[in-house]
């Protein structure tokens, strides 16, 4: 089997039965504390009015963006994007500022609200089970999904598969693969029978949200240097001007005094 260049998930909401085996498997595999979870149910559940009803749910977790905003925003670089997909966390660097919870357009990272100074409050999210990838296994959620709603593999292949499914069943799916382009592309791709907002997914554009932030950053240093130069220039200029004026008035005073003295 060829090595995978970019790991990704493909979730098909039409196959999901909201059993939550994925969440339990993840909790066990990753030793998630009882009061937290890396995967949670989103979606409107039952929609409509009796008897015209519909269901939509999905297991929501980290999107493992291609251009992660948590990676961009973390002051100490605690988040990093591994080449082959997973967005990983370095718990030794984290200062618990929780900026990543703001930067993430999918509102993914969770924080240890109940840990004090001695326990060490950290951030938590889906890791794509690197310990399983290492030994050739799929992430725990994918492996256990009884209906095959969760698939895993090479991102490009899964995108092609998703589009093929849409083509084969045009009346079944919304004609869009969520995550193909959103936020610059994510590694959690989603097929749905209902609008993605009904599944609890945010409306995120195709340009990574970090781009504007990083562009502003690139402008900052030249701006700071320029602004500093301007201010220095003004300070010096004002100072010189003041000196010139002082010397001029001094001269005037001296001249006046001399004249006055001369006249006497």
């Amino acid at each position, binding site marked *: 089997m060829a090595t995978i260049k970019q790991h990704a998930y493909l979730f098909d909401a039409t196959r999901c039965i909201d059993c939550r085996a994925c969440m339990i498997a993840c909790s066990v595999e990753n030793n998630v504390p009882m009061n937290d979870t890396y995967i949670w149910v989103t979606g409107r559940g039952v929609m409509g009015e009796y008897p015209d009803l519909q269901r939509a749910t999905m297991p929501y977790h980290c999107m493992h963006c291609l251009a992660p905003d948590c990676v961009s*925003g973390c002051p*100490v670089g605690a988040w990093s994007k591994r080449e082959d997909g997973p967005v990983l966390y370095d718990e030794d660097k984290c200062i618990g500022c929780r900026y990543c919870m*703001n930067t993430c357009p999918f509102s993914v990272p969770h*924080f240890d609200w109940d840990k004090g100074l001695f326990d060490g409050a950290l951030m938590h999210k889906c890791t794509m089970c690197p310990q399983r990838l290492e030994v050739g296994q799929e992430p725990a959620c994918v492996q256990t999904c009884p209906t095959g709603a969760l698939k895993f593999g090479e991102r490009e292949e899964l995108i092609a598969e998703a589009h093929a499914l849409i083509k084969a069943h045009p009346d079944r799916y919304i004609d869009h693969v969520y995550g193909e382009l959103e936020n610059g592309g994510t590694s959690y791709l989603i097929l749905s029978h209902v609008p993605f907002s009904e599944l609890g997914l945010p409306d995120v554009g195709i340009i990574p949200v970090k781009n504007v932030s990083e562009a502003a950053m690139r402008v900052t240093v030249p701006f*700071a240097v320029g602004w500093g130069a301007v201010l220095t220039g003004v300070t010096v200029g004002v100072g010189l001007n*003041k000196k010139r004026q002082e010397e001029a008035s001094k001269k005037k005073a001296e001249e006046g005094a001399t004249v006055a003295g001369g006249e006497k």
Partner: protein
Amino acid sequence: MKMQVAVPPRVLRFRPSPIAAVLITLMGIGFVVAMVRFASGIGTISNLSNTYPWGFWISFDIYTGIAISSGAFLLAAAVYIFDLKEFRPLLMPSILTALIGYFMEVLALMVDLGRPERIFNMLFFQNFTSWMLVLGLCVMIYLAILVVEFAPVALKGLKREKLAQFARRFIKPAVILGVVVSTIHQGSLGSLLLIQSAKLHPLWWTPLLPVMFFVSSISIGLAMIIFESSMSSRYFRRGLEMHLLEKLAKAIPVALGIYAVLKFAQLILSGNFWHLFDSGLHSVLFWAEIIVGVVIPLIIFASPRNRQNPRMLLVGAIILLLGMILNRFNVSWFGIQRLQDVSYVPSLTEVSISAAIFSFGILAFGLVARYLPLFEDAEAAAANS
């Protein structure tokens, strides 16, 4: 008439006034709550959650706190860069305000950071795409700069004249650096939000956020100078430098005008102008911040008669501050759209932390004003007039 400079008494007889007693009590409560936070986590004493990772502390202690410390760099620039020495009397109180203000922020961060003991990680592990890093470094640098700028007063108060003189040498370069850092810093609070384009309501999000923050910080700083001067004039029973405040007040409508133009131009050009009317509560909040923070103060400060009236100056300043504080709350809290339908109201213990920090700030200002030659320049100027 020359006023005596207050001499620190040899024996401190501690008999706090009623106000001071309240402030000290609030500090005590906050201290206990902070200890609980350190023992059992932020969640035990606040209503913050995964849906609301930042809440009252960030909006009040950080966003508002940094904004209202912006008077210092304006006055420092006026006095030391533009050599407008007439503003000297206002300078040191303003620098003290900023110094205490930034220290208050550090206190807030000690409670709000998940791992405050690791705050210096920002010096060892640096991710240069992060505006959070810029914010953290700016706080550290500007705090140092404020210490340098305030050093002469402190050293003089501690009777170290020679050292005070020595310290004065560093003021000009410190001020230049301080203005640069402040510009970036005030802007950085806005830049912090650039990455939240998917979450911050389009009434507030714009690529121009750092510019908007900087421009508004100018008017906020000017209003703060007016406010702080009025307050210390009342409390310390001093004169009020009306002629200076009048001049500063003249600049406020200009600053507000530029801000308003930028804001509305950006809304129109980005096609988001219609949100002014269709976004329910967000529209209301936006109108409120504009009317209270821009329109009313602009009308007040545009009138020369108001500018010459101490009471109108104070009223105008307070209204401007309230409106701008609302703006800070809007961009950092109310305007952020959440994925989960969860509500957040800060808990009493949460607010008590901010109350304690705020009380500390007031007490610190009062103590410094009493025991250090804070108003020396003001008195000297008054004496010479």
